[in-house]
């Protein structure tokens, strides 16, 4: 249970499984034990729907044997079942063909960076505080003129341990809390606000509620949007989704699978010079920060795109071998993944970005993004929660019925201005589940379509 004062259960579990796997002939093993308590309040129509509380203990194991790789995950931690689950899985490995590309677990032990402020023990027990924060967000949105408010507040706190055959034996505590609020000023006039942090005191439910409420009220004045191409300033909720995809597409596994527009583009210019995208798991209090990856390597700051040039793919030990590269400490045993994406801020004020729009759009949120073809990067997305027409630097009202329809690489190349303040964002529609820290960005000539019947 996550309230326990030590890592005793985690350490003994990972060691026990490591021993079982080695006795069965495994050569490379990594074992992760996770223990946490999660709390979650859902609300809609400005009232609570349900409070969820979760107590978890989970084990995940990656096993390498004779160039074969197996991943097992289980929540059935009864000792006899754990043993049987791991042993039977290893027995089955002999029927697998060996992989053409194989690499052992990274050889440690390692010195890990200290990433401060990733854990707040108050999130082990906070319950009334979550209800209070939800109420503040709801009341703040209503006080701005919203008719009704929906959202969630969710916290988790606990620890995880990792042991590998590379001599790694490490545990770390972490916690997270986020609040997402969506306000309605009428049937279709909506606004969205998000706040997330590693600590209970780090969220700002009032700000999230006010932003959602203000945008919802502003969106009441609307016209039907005309399809075409516009210069666009994207808000953070939209960018949480877009920047997450810009970063995730650098995973070497997606490149191998030809599921990325970055295939064959390493060291090539893929974006405007304004764009520098970093994966920084070492950022103090970063919502996605962590000190080691799932193979036990110390994490590091990786610059994915530097001044528009694609500098690296993100690797684990196996994709690194396939690309004849070094691991970037982004394991994911099967799929390497970014930890905490930060889009480097520019020097413009947020108001300046809008003031300089002669005739364009301010798009606050982009959801339901789907690719036509991952290699080309053609996609469309549903835009909502404030799609404002801007003329001569002033918001003149919302436009409705438009759909963002463009190409990922075109959009990256057409970025012309970035604001100076990057803020963390994490919400439900960030389907790649990578937290992002982003300023606002302005992009020329973005495509929009609409239903014609």
């Amino acid at each position, binding site marked *: *249970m996550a309230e326990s004062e030590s890592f005793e259960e985690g350490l003994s579990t990972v060691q026990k499984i490591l021993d079982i796997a080695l006795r069965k002939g495994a050569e490379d093993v990594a074992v992760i034990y996770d223990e946490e308590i999660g709390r*979650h*309040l859902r*609300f*809609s*129509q400005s*009232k*609570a*729907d*349900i*409070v*969820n*509380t*979760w*107590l*978890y203990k*989970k084990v995940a194991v990656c096993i390498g044997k004779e160039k*074969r790789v*197996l991943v097992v995950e*289980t*929540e*059935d931690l009864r000792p006899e079942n754990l043993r049987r*689950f791991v042993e039977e*899985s290893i027995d*089955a490995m002999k*029927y*697998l063909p060996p*992989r053409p590309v194989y690499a052992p677990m990274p050889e440690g032990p390692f010195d890990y960076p200290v990433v401060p402020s990733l854990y707040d023990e108050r999130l082990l027990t906070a319950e009334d505080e979550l*209800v209070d924060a*939800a109420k503040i967000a*709801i009341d703040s949105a209503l006080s701005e003129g919203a008719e*009704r408010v*929906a959202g969630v507040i*969710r916290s988790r706190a606990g620890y995880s341990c990792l042991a590998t055959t590379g001599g790694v034996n490490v545990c770390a505590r972490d916690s997270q809390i986020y609040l997402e609020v969506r306000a309605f000023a009428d049937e*279709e006039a909506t606004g969205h606000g998000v706040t997330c942090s590693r600590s209970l005191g780090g969220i700002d439910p009032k700000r999230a509620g006010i932003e959602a409420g203000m945008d919802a009220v502003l969106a009441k004045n609307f016209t039907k949007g005309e*399809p075409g191409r516009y210069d666009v300033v994207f808000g953070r909720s939209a960018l949480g989704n877009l920047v997450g995809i810009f970063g995730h597409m650098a995973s070497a596994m997606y490149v*191998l*699978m*030809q*599921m990325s527009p970055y295939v064959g583009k390493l060291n090539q210019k893929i974006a405007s010079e304004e764009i520098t995208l970093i994966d920084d798991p070492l950022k103090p209090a970063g919502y996605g920060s962590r000190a080691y990856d799932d193979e036990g390597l110390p994490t590091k700051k990786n610059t994915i795109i530097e001044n528009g040039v694609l500098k690296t793919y993100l690797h684990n030990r196996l994709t690194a071998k396939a690309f004849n590269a070094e691991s970037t400490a982004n394991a994911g045993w*099967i799929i390497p993944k970014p930890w905490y994406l930060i889009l480097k801020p520019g020097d413009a004020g947020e108001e300046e970005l809008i003031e300089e729009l002669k005739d364009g759009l301010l798009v606050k949120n982009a959801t339901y*993004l*789907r690719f*036509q*073809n991952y*290699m*080309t990067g*053609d996609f*469309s*997305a*549903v835009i*909502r929660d404030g799609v404002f027409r801007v003329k001569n630097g002033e918001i003149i009202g919302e436009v409705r019925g438009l*759909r963002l329809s463009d190409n990922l690489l075109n959009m990256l190349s057409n970025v012309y201005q970035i604001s100076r303040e990057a803020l963390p964002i994490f919400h*439900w529609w960030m389907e790649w589940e990578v937290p992002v820290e982003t300023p606002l960005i302005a992009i020329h000539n973005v*495509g929009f*379509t*609409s*239903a*014609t*019947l």
Partner: protein
Amino acid sequence: MVSEEIKDLVEYAVRRALGMHADYAEARFQINRSTRLFMINGNIEAFSSVSVAGIGIRVLVNGSMGFSSTNDLKQVDKAIENAIRGAKACLKISKKIRLSEEKFSEASYSSKVLKKPEDISLEEKIEFLNSIDELAKEKGITTRNLSLKYSREQVYYVNSEGSRVEGDVTRLNGDAMLTLVIGSESAQEFVEKGGSGGWELIEGWNFLKEASRIADVMKEGLEKGIPPPKGKMDLVLGPHVVGLMMHESTGHPYEADRILGREAAQAGESFVKPNMLGKRIGSEVVTVVDDPTIEGSSGFYLYDMEGVKARRRILMKNGIINEFLHNRETAAIFGVKSNAAARASSYDREPIIRMANTFMLPGEYSQEELMEDIKEGVYIARFTEWNIDDRRYNQRYVGSEAYLIKNGKLDRMVKRPILEITTPAFYSSIDAVGKDLEFNPGLCGKSDPGQSVPVWFGGPSVRLRGVRLGGI
């Protein structure tokens, strides 16, 4: 079978919650096991095995709802306490929830499994993937990402109103993501087959035949496809497209929790309102149903996760909005009985309103008859990119396999035609429905925390009169 020891624990959880002054309590032990083989270009990239098991407890206290779960069965008391405490904590802002009155019984059900997937050797499973890979490679497909997954979900559910349900469903799924690169152009297609049952399902899939046909179509599209026409015309949509549309533009907007705003912060609400029951939204030839009781389907179940007996739901009847999807909470608000749409993806998730197998009932037309009087139009057989807005009103489907129709006959392939249309316009423009009903499997995602549940999308071909193909 869930062990007697576990069943006793589930019964105990309900009794204990009532003893702690819950007005209503339910407990569910659920175990979801799955095994997956993942192959890239003929090499097994990953073999994974997942076992998720534990107990979930849901309570009502003075109209306030709490849910708690644990996978450590020694902590069941703690979980019960958490559920009660959670419900009490949100009393000051709670909705005063009521549940519909239902008849409950003791029941059990399971999917029909002739050949247990776990009894089939790993070699045979790998051979299945190899055969697809080799064929696709021969056809020139540049990258083949293939996956085979078998899973089993076992549930023991008890509530404080007399329900005791045991369910056991095995499922099998295979999919292929194919990429073809010719020169500077590329095409991608996703092929998926699946249902509930055992290894015997493989024979009915005709996966090789389907993959072979699609590989040929991808090549033809890249080499010979022409830009699609734009503007107003007649369209024929194939079962692959229609099935998804049934899910997205009838199934989701008819979910009563969306109609009442419970999903507003995530996937959104619905353009359908309670007072639209009985109103016409489509042409008379359109009837759309959702049916969890179809044996062999991905969305198969006979009792939902509130213990209510499942039945076919007729969502749209001859173009008229007929019925919404309900759980006990929304049924009480609407003054009706639940139609058993409550599902939970695993033990640690509250049961929420979900579709099962959503499809349009077939009509009488052959594909040839649907096209015979179209002078110039487009037939969209398969889709790639799609999305729909958060009210389920404005939707877009991009064709991956599509052809011109000229003088009633299929003509050249067209590249990526874009249908962007509102839901009422879509259903109103259908004037003929084919008899070629087909189902495709999929995972439907919903809610926070996210829950993915297996479903079938089903549709026959349909003919649309005077709609617009668009794009920039």
